């Protein structure tokens, strides 16, 4: 039987339009905009100034706080200015704007050949140091700095490494294509993380709608010690950290705790590839695979794109903005965030750019809740979304906390399944925000 998480989940239509289109290297625009808040946590501090010449791969901003990551120049050119620009959060944040000047001149020490280096020479400390210097963040979407995740807290032991290739979001195919085109790199990357963590078993979890990737990786994984490919049932949200751990190891992460509590560390396949590049080739994280797609996009494609390219440039490469576009989403359709314009640059966290026409993006008028319980059935965390919504509307924050509103991971299954089209997740997010503020103020 195929493995999956036991509770809840929904089955949205796949719509993987770009599953068969190979990764295409995106051309460079005249200007790139590199956000300083590429990762969760504190924004990086720029170490270059206006007019400086930068090489491709050069460090331009340093992550100084504990949870923060380095930012490197993805192009060769001159720093135009450091200015606040609108980003995916909907607010203005500081960004380094670079004028692109011709071909790439690479920073010294970076190996840009395609040779596969299987032998891992670096020690665990060196690996984590290299990951930190390369500015690697989780490429699954949350953009949590990887070096922080790989630093196991005192008293905890990691037993398993889980590599997340589930890609349960509809439309997105960036991880799928990466697994097909760079399987060896992912496997070496996985071995590197295993060495850094000191674990002997790693699982690569892939949903059963990517049979070609499962076949390829299973075949190649035989040459690697302790790596096993696990076929997972196609179900949303299979790729969520806690759900993946439950599906593969059968362990349940306690409420409010991190996966390390049950001896697991989860990394995305894209992150594994980035770690391979950083450790074996000294390549900082300056590019990622991004899927530009949508029902009416003329050439939906997967791009290997440098960080900081404005989205409109990528959309242009995918055949231009369809006329009836009403919504631009960064990430997948279930958990992605709507963007307010196409000038926003690509960041390390964006795995997909979706262009939806009006009929798909319109919200329908909500009807009253009839307590059919479908949201309760669909919730992978075992919460009661309909009840949480009511508690938030009535501003009963203490009760919402008692009903574990904080455990909601905002996967959107409840809102997807609701026959009355109620904005359940909107209210739960509002409540989550309020309740976490209350909890924070209680601690202080």
């Amino acid at each position, binding site marked *: 039987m195929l493995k999956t998480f036991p509770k809840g989940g929904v089955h949205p239509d796949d719509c993987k339009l770009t599953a068969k289109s190979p990764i295409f290297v995106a051309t460079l625009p005249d200007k790139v905009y590199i956000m300083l808040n590429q990762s969760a946590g504190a924004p990086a501090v720029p170490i270059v100034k206006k007019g400086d010449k930068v090489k491709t791969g050069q460090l331009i901003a340093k992550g100084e706080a504990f949870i923060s990551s380095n930012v490197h120049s993805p192009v060769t050119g001159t720093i135009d200015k450091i200015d*606040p620009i*609108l980003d995916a*959060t*909907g*607010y*203005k944040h500081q960004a380094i704007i670079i004028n692109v000047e011709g071909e790439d001149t690479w920073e010294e020490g970076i190996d840009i050949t395609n040779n596969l280096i299987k032998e891992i020479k670096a020690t665990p400390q060196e690996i984590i140091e290299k990951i930190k210097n390369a500015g690697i963040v989780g490429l699954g979407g949350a953009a949590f700095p990887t070096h922080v995740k790989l630093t196991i807290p005192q008293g905890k032991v990691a037993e398993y490494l889980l590599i997340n290739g589930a890609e349960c979001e509809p439309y997105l195919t960036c991880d799928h294509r990466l697994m097909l085109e760079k399987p060896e790199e992912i496997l070496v990357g996985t071995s590197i993380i295993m060495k850094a963590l000191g674990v002997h078993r790693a699982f690569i979890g892939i949903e059963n709608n990517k049979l070609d990737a499962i076949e390829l990786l299973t075949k190649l994984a035989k040459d690697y010690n302790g790596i096993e490919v696990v076929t997972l049932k196609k179900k949303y949200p299979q790729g969520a950290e806690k759900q993946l751990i439950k599906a593969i190891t059968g362990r349940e992460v306690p409420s409010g705790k991190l996966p390390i509590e049950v001896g697991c560390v989860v990394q995305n396949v894209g992150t594994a590839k980035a770690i391979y590049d950083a450790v074996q080739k000294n390549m900082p994280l300056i590019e990622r695979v991004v899927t530009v797609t949508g029902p009416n996009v003329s050439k939906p494609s997967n791009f290997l794109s440098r960080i900081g390219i404005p989205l409109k440039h990528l959309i242009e490469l995918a055949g231009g903005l369809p006329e009836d576009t009403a919504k631009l989403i960064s990430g997948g359709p279930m958990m992605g*965030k*709507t963007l*307010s*314009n196409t000038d926003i640059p690509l960041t390390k966290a964006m795995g997909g750019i979706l262009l939806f026409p009006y009929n798909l993006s*319109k*919200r329908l008028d909500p009807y009253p809740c009839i307590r059919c319980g479908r949201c309760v059935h669909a919730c992978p965390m075992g919460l009661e979304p309909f009840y949480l919504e009511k508690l938030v509307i009535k501003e009963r924050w203490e009760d919402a906390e008692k009903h574990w509103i904080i455990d909601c991971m905002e996967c959107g299954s409840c809102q997807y399944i609701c026959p009355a089209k109620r*904005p359940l997740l*909107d*209210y739960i*997010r*509002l409540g989550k*925000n*309020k309740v976490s503020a209350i909890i924070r103020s209680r601690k202080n």
Partner: protein
Amino acid sequence: MEPVIIAFVVLSLMAAIFAVIIYFVDKQFHVEEDPRIDLIAEKLPGANCGGCGYAGCRNFAEAIVKNNSLDGLFCAPGGNKVMSEIAELMNLTAEEKKPQVAVIRCQGSFENCPPKHDYNGIKNCGFANFLFAGKGGCAYGCLGLGDCVEACKFDALYMDPITGLPVVIEDNCTACGNCVKACPRNIIELRNKGPKNRRIYVACMNKEKGIYAKANCLVACIGCNACAKECKFDAIKIENFLAYIDYKKCTLCRKCVAVCPTNCILEVNFLPKKQENANIANDSSKNIVNN
């Protein structure tokens, strides 16, 4: 006939026994309460608005009696009249406060700050605030989803469908401060009502550099310092490219209003200046009056 008599006797006996039990329980568990609490609670408006910081009017009354002082306790809806009555009851002196009113420090109407995209999530400013900067792109301006109207217990606020901004009905506003707490962007401020309800304030909260502020909104404060230079009473401070008029120092001379290049200083309830009558009639945007 007999069952009726039996039932009557049994029930009467039970009633008598319970009456005795209740009498003793009442005596035993009697709570001694200060009679002044009831008297004060009677005097209070009874709206349970929560503006004083307590859950309701009775809790406020209890707090007064418990503390036996009026320090930091003020019922804004009741005003000075109610507070002096309470002070008399408690043999204390009430601090005289000037009557205040809520003002909306944003003029980002659909006309001044044109919407750049649609929003169709839930109608809640608190939620919209952590999604995006706002339809017009101003990260400091009014989101126009009416959290303040929801919070107002005195029907003193409504959303103007033409401008998309909340409007304060001065006569109903009691300055309880619920809207101030409800606004996620701190746009609403309580200011002194002023003589003849006349007020001058900067109707902008944008702390960006002038060029960015002006890009989104026609009437944004650009921090040009013109008003601060004009003011002879040191009432205007510029911080983070934003002017703020201190209502305690302002003498309502109206000189700053005339020099503001973006018309973001509002004058409320003034008669039009005689020599400028013609100008003001043409320039209606400058004379938005809050009622």
